[in-house]
Every structure is written in C-alpha cells, then in structure tokens.
C-alpha cells in the first residue's frame, strides 16, 4: 500500500472518534462568516447553480443560434456590446448562452460522477477496511491497477469502443474517481474498526449491519463530504479535459471544455473565445475546492 495520502486523518479520527464528524457539519453559518475562502467558494457554487437552474429562463438567447457575420465578437467592456455580454464564438453563437447550456451539462455530470464514484469507492473502501483479508487484497490491487492506467488513455479506449454518450463519460469519470474514496475510507475504516467504542458496541452484541450503519458510516460522513467536494472540482476538470480533447460528449453537446477547444484556434486574435469558458471552469473548480478545503479544515479542529 502506498502510504502517501491522507494518513493523517484516520489517526485524528482515532484520537477523537466522536467529535470529528458532527462538528464538521454543525454551525455552518458561523464558520462561513469567519472564513473568507468559504464565502467565496460557496458564493461561486451558488452562482453557477443558479445559472444552470434559471439561466435559460433569464437569458433568452439560444446557445445554438449562429450569426456568422458577428463571429468572435468581444465581451462587453472590451469593445463588445451588451447584446452579447460575454462575446460570441467562432460561429457567432452567444457565449453567455453557451456558458449556461454548458453549466447544465457539466455541473450535473460532475455531481453525478462524484456521487457514483463515492458510492462505489465508499462501499469498496468499507468492505476492504472492515473485512480485511482477501477482500482487502482485491480492492487494494484494483486501486493500484486503476492508478496505473493514465486517465486520458482510458478515456480514449472507452470513447473508441463505445462512442460518445453521457453513460460512457460517466463510466470514465467513475472508474477514475472511485479510488480516491476507497483508499481513504479503507484506512479510516481500519482505524475505526479497532476503536474502543466499536469494540464496546461489538461486545454489547451489535451485528454487522448495526455496526456499519449506526456506528461506522456516521463517523465516515465528514470524510466523505470533504472528499466529495474536492472530487467534484476534479470531476469538472476531468470532464472539461475530455471535451477539450474531443473525447467527451461529442461535438454537438455544449460543454465548457468543448467551448475552450473551439476557441483555441482564435486564441491570438480573439482570446476571449477560449478565456471565458476557461475562466468558468476555473471558477467552478475554485468553488468546489475552497468549499472542500474549508470542510477539511473544520474537520481537523
């Protein structure tokens, strides 16, 4: 086993098994108020979520409507007009409308991939950590194998074999993402399994279901929440990278990565065509990561 990552947290959990999880989830308003980065992170996420939810109703332009005569118009404030506040792309399509359409793809996809990877990773991690033995051997081996496969190579294989679809990109992201959960949760489960209060519960006759459901999982909840927020940011980047490389959802689905790829050709003459989607990707990642960091900091206290 590679002892590189996250070895600190299970130890902390062992030291104060009951105070860790709940504390991280309590008292959000106060901590947000006192943490500038948390405020920024949560604001960014809320803004993007709003954009995805009510964007199409609020901004009337259609993301696919072309206006070739008005291609690569600069954003408002850089020589552009308020008709296209973020400018237009190389086919004259409104960038704001496309950012909104992209949010409606990228955000749910990343959240779904994070959740699915989380379910797979936590399940395998708990099994490996709790059961040990050959189960642990298999899970550890699987995660080593997975870490040895370059992400892009795997994505190329999936796309070449199964084509472009939401299911396939989700598969790629889940297969890439589960390891992070499994490794951390496995370590933490191993630590918690030997904790005195788990021993006590076992001594009082609790069965495996009660042990896992009532005692173990609640104690893992904070870790999972922290991991999930950080993973969601990574998923945004992975999904964008796939779309940028043409391995994502295909040319006709609007994605932030696809927008950046299309804008790249004009990067010297109309840098905004690539910079705007790039900035949106950065904002989403920043939002998730700041939130995740803040949760992690809370967890350690």
């Amino acid at each position, binding site marked *: 086993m590679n002892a590189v990552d996250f070895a600190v947290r299970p130890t902390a959990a062992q030291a104060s098994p009951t105070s860790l999880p709940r504390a991280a989830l309590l008292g959000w308003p106060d901590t947000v108020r006192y943490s500038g980065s948390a405020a920024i992170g949560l604001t960014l996420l809320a803004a993007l979520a709003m954009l995805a939810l009510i964007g199409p109703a609020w901004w009337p332009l259609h993301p*696919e*409507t*072309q206006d*070739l*005569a*008005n*291609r*690569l*118009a*600069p954003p408002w404030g*850089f*020589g*552009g007009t308020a008709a296209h506040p973020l400018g237009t792309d*190389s*086919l*004259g*399509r409104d960038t704001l409308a496309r950012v909104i359409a992209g949010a409606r793809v990228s955000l749910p996809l990343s959240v779904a991939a994070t959740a699915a990877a989380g379910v797979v990773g936590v399940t395998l991690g708990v099994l490996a950590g709790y059961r040990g033995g050959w189960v642990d051997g298999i899970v550890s081996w699987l995660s080593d194998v997975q870490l040895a496969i370059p992400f892009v190579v795997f994505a190329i294989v999936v796309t*070449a074999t199964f*084509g*472009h679809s939401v299911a396939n990109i989700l598969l790629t992201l889940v297969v890439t993402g589960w390891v992070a959960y499994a490794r951390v949760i496995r370590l933490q489960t191993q630590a918690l399994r030997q904790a005195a209060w788990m021993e006590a519960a076992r001594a009082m006759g609790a069965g495996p279901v009660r042990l896992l459901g009532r005692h173990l999982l609640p104690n893992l909840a904070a870790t999972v929440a922290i991991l999930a927020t950080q993973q969601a940011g990574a998923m945004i980047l992975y999904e964008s990278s796939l779309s940028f490389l*043409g391995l994502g959802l*295909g*040319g*006709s689905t609007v994605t932030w990565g696809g927008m950046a*790829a*299309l804008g*790249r*050709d*004009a*990067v*010297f*003459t*109309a*840098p*905004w065509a690539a910079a705007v989607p790039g900035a949106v990707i950065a904002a989403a990642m920043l939002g998730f990561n700041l939130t995740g960091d803040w949760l992690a900091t809370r967890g350690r206290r």
Partner: protein
Amino acid sequence: MKYSHDWEPRVLAGARNDTLREWQDARRVMSRRSLLGMGAVAATGLLVPTGLPSARALPASQTDAAGELTIDLAVEPPTLDPALVYEADGWSVVHSIYDAPVQLGPGGALQMVAAEAMTQVDDLTWEIRLRPGIAFHNGEPLESSSIAFSVAHILDPETASQVAGSFGVIEEVEEVDSLTARLLLSTPAPWLPSQIAPWLALLPPEYAGDPANDFANNPVGTGPYRFVRWDRGSQIVLERNEQYQASGAKGEPIAGSVTVRFVADGTTRVTDIVSGASQLVRSVPFDQLQVVAETADVIAQPIAGCAFVRIPTDVSPFDNPAVRLAMNHAVDVEGIIAALFGGNGERLANVFVPGGLGYDESLAPHVYDPELARQLLAEAGFADGFSTRLAHTTSDRADLAAAVAGQLAAVGIEVALEPVETATFNATWKDPEAAPLRFLTWRPLYDPFTLLGLVISSSGFLSRYSDPEAQALIEAGAAETDPEERDRLYRELGQVLHASPAGIYLWSLTSFYGLSRDVQGWTPRPDDWILPLAAEGAS
C-alpha cells in the same frame, strides 16, 4: 472545354495585407493590444502592425538551393509505399522522393514528369516513353521495366492497394524497348492518367523487388529528393537529389535538405512558422492568418477540390430525394465561405469543381432558403424534422462541421457531431452503424473519376449512394475516350447529382499556407501537394 478559373495564389504579406484586412472586416476583431488595455487600436480595426521592421528580426534561415527547409504537414502517412498513400500530405512526401511518368494540371492537362511522352495509341493502348539518362537514387537506371514492376506492385493482392481496382484495367505492360512501355487495357480507360499521376510512382525493380530492402520504409525513387530517414511519429528527412533532371511542370528542388514534420495541431504549426522553427506550414487556421502575416507570408491557394457532406441513399429518411434537397437548401454555404474562409472559394452545385472535368458554370448551386427547406421536409413527412449524426475527422476544422450542423438544426434536423480519428473515419465509410452523414473534402478533382468511382457509384468501395440514372452516366463517362464527350457526360451527371443529391454540396477548396519570406521560388500547387520545388513560370 475552357477553364477560366484563376489558379494564381494570393500572397498576403504582413506589410501589404489589405486583402487580409478585407477578409476580416466582416468580423468584429479586436487586436491583442487593445485587449491588453493599450487601447491604441480601434476595436473594429486592424490587427497587424504594418511595416514594423522588428517583425522580421527572427532567426534568419536563408533558404537557397543549398539551404535547409523545414515543412510542417498535418497528417503523417502510415507508409511511404506509393500504392498505399491516398491523401495530400502523404503524396507531398511520396512525390518529393518519387516521380510518376506524368502529372495532371488544371483542366486535367497532361504534364510530363519522368516521361518524355505519354500518348494514346488507340482506345485500348497507352504508350509511355521515359526520358533517357534518369537514374534512381541508388544508381539503378530508370527503364521501362520500372513501369511494369510498379503496375504489378499495385495489382499485387498482397499490396492491398485501394486502387488495385482501377489499375485492374491494365491487362498487360508490354516493354517495347528499354525506355518505352505500352499499357494494354481490357476496356477503354480515358481516366487512366488521373490514376497514374498520384499512384504510379516509378519504383526501382531491383531494389524494391528485394523484400529485405523494405522499400515502403526506405524508399528509393527518381524524384527531386532522396530519402534520408524517418523518425516515426515526428519527421521525415530528405536531401536534394543532385542528379535530378527537373521537368518544367513539376519543378526543381529549392533546398539542399528538407525536414518534413507532422504537426497535427494548427496552433502548433502557427507557432512553428512564427518562431522560425519551420519555413512552410500547411493549413493555417483561419483565425490565425493575421498572426502568421506578421512575420511570414500567407498564401491563399485555390485547390481543385470540393467539400461536401456525404448523404447515403440506403437508409431512411435520406432515401427520399426531397429530404436531401431540403438539406441543401438549409445550409448558408455563401455565409460560411464569407465568414470562415474570408470569401475564398465558391458554392458548388454538385461535386464537380472549377478546373476539373464536368464543371458546369451555367448550373446554379442550390440556394440558401430555410423556408423552402422546411416546406420540402414537411411535404416529405418530416414536418417536425428528425435526428441524425454527422462524422468528421479530428484533423478537419471542427467549426465547419459545427456550422453546417447548426444550420440544419435551424430547419429541424438535429445533427449530433461525431469527431473521429482519420483511421476510424476511413474504416467506417460503409458501416451502417457509423454516422450516416460525413464531412468530406476531396482533391484533386482534375479528373473526377476516382471520387465518382469510389464515393458516388453504387458499386463504389466507399459509397452508400445509388441512383440508376447517375450510375449509367458514371459508367458511360468512365468508358468515353473523347474528352469533349466525356466532359459533356459528366455535365449531364452533374445535373442528375444536383437534382438527386449525393450530399450537401458545399464549397470549392482553398488552402492557406504560411511561407517564410526567406524562402524563394516555392510553387504552391492546385492539387494541394506541398512539394519543396520551384516549377516553371514561378517567380
């Protein structure tokens, strides 16, 4: 036949780029400088700082006949076996090393290269007389046995050449004397020169006949450059053939040493020419022409080729000609030419192009009329439109396919774009599971025989189109030996293909090359091959 088409390349240097400015005028472009806040240039103004001497203060690589030249192409050929190369970048390398007996020029004009003469003795006999005194790079003399050997190589089933079918018309190669050979045909084949020019590169029988030499990877030809080495995945190095006897039509070498690099990404090619790492680059992305024009010349070369979106007729709803017509009316081809090619190129009525056989100036292309398109779709029973898929290769410009798809969407045809690797693309032409629509460019089309035979004919190797009337004309055109009559048959075929479309006919091609101002005399070609040669009549 008269071809009034203007083949002159347009050279757009940074210091005199009024034309470039004109192309960009339709767009609201802003200079990098004003974006950076300097604000000196008006938002709709011009990008290129004209006449700045510093623009040329790059590492000068003086290219002369003895100098070094680095060329960026886009696609690396899988092999240098001339029988297995089918696209312009591969031909650019193959025909730097090899000579064919002849090449074609605009209008299908037969131009001599290694041959002194190529004549049609009768309907079933072509005679090729080679120029005396030519030697292969390894010293082997060029004799008529090379013609027989090269034909046999293409026909060999083990070679698995896609053009074995068309060369199959050659029943026998008769060696009349050491320099003269006669091709004896089974049926009249007036189109034979269009096959010989790209594919019948003259091989050295003794050297290529020995499998140990692996001539596909270590080619030896009679061409202007000899092969030095191939760093797979990166570059091919060539050096000047000092013994080369230049023909006026093909031209003479302009450099002592040539490095051909394969750079798939357009922005990287631009970086190469701007930094001076390369002196000649293919396919400058349209939005980066200005960047190149700051330090080098941009050349807009009309190409005898066409772009179209293949529509199959073997599957619903495309089996209905009205649907295919509606799709032609749905796309604003002129708008795309203006916005995405700077007005270079023209809308085509079918697959025949200016400068090629069968082009009919009097046949008007379909007009852009989305209302008519919707009406045709409604009459065909698709008032609510339908969904389909469109494949294009990842080396094509993604914006072109997206522009076409977006305009089809505007009349209710939802098109999912599928960018695929070139190899996958070429393996799935007839695959019923693959996207039915595919974005194609085809060049050269001096003689449309290859395109018609492969992509349009119902028996074609790559075809999913079938129309009895068109089929009869394709076959008649392939067998007609009188050029005037053949042109007439193809014009008639053009009308059939116009009325019962085999695709969404788009534009005639234009290539944008970037050329260092240090390079003298390079001649761009209307067939889009990039050969490091200066042809007769070039400045």
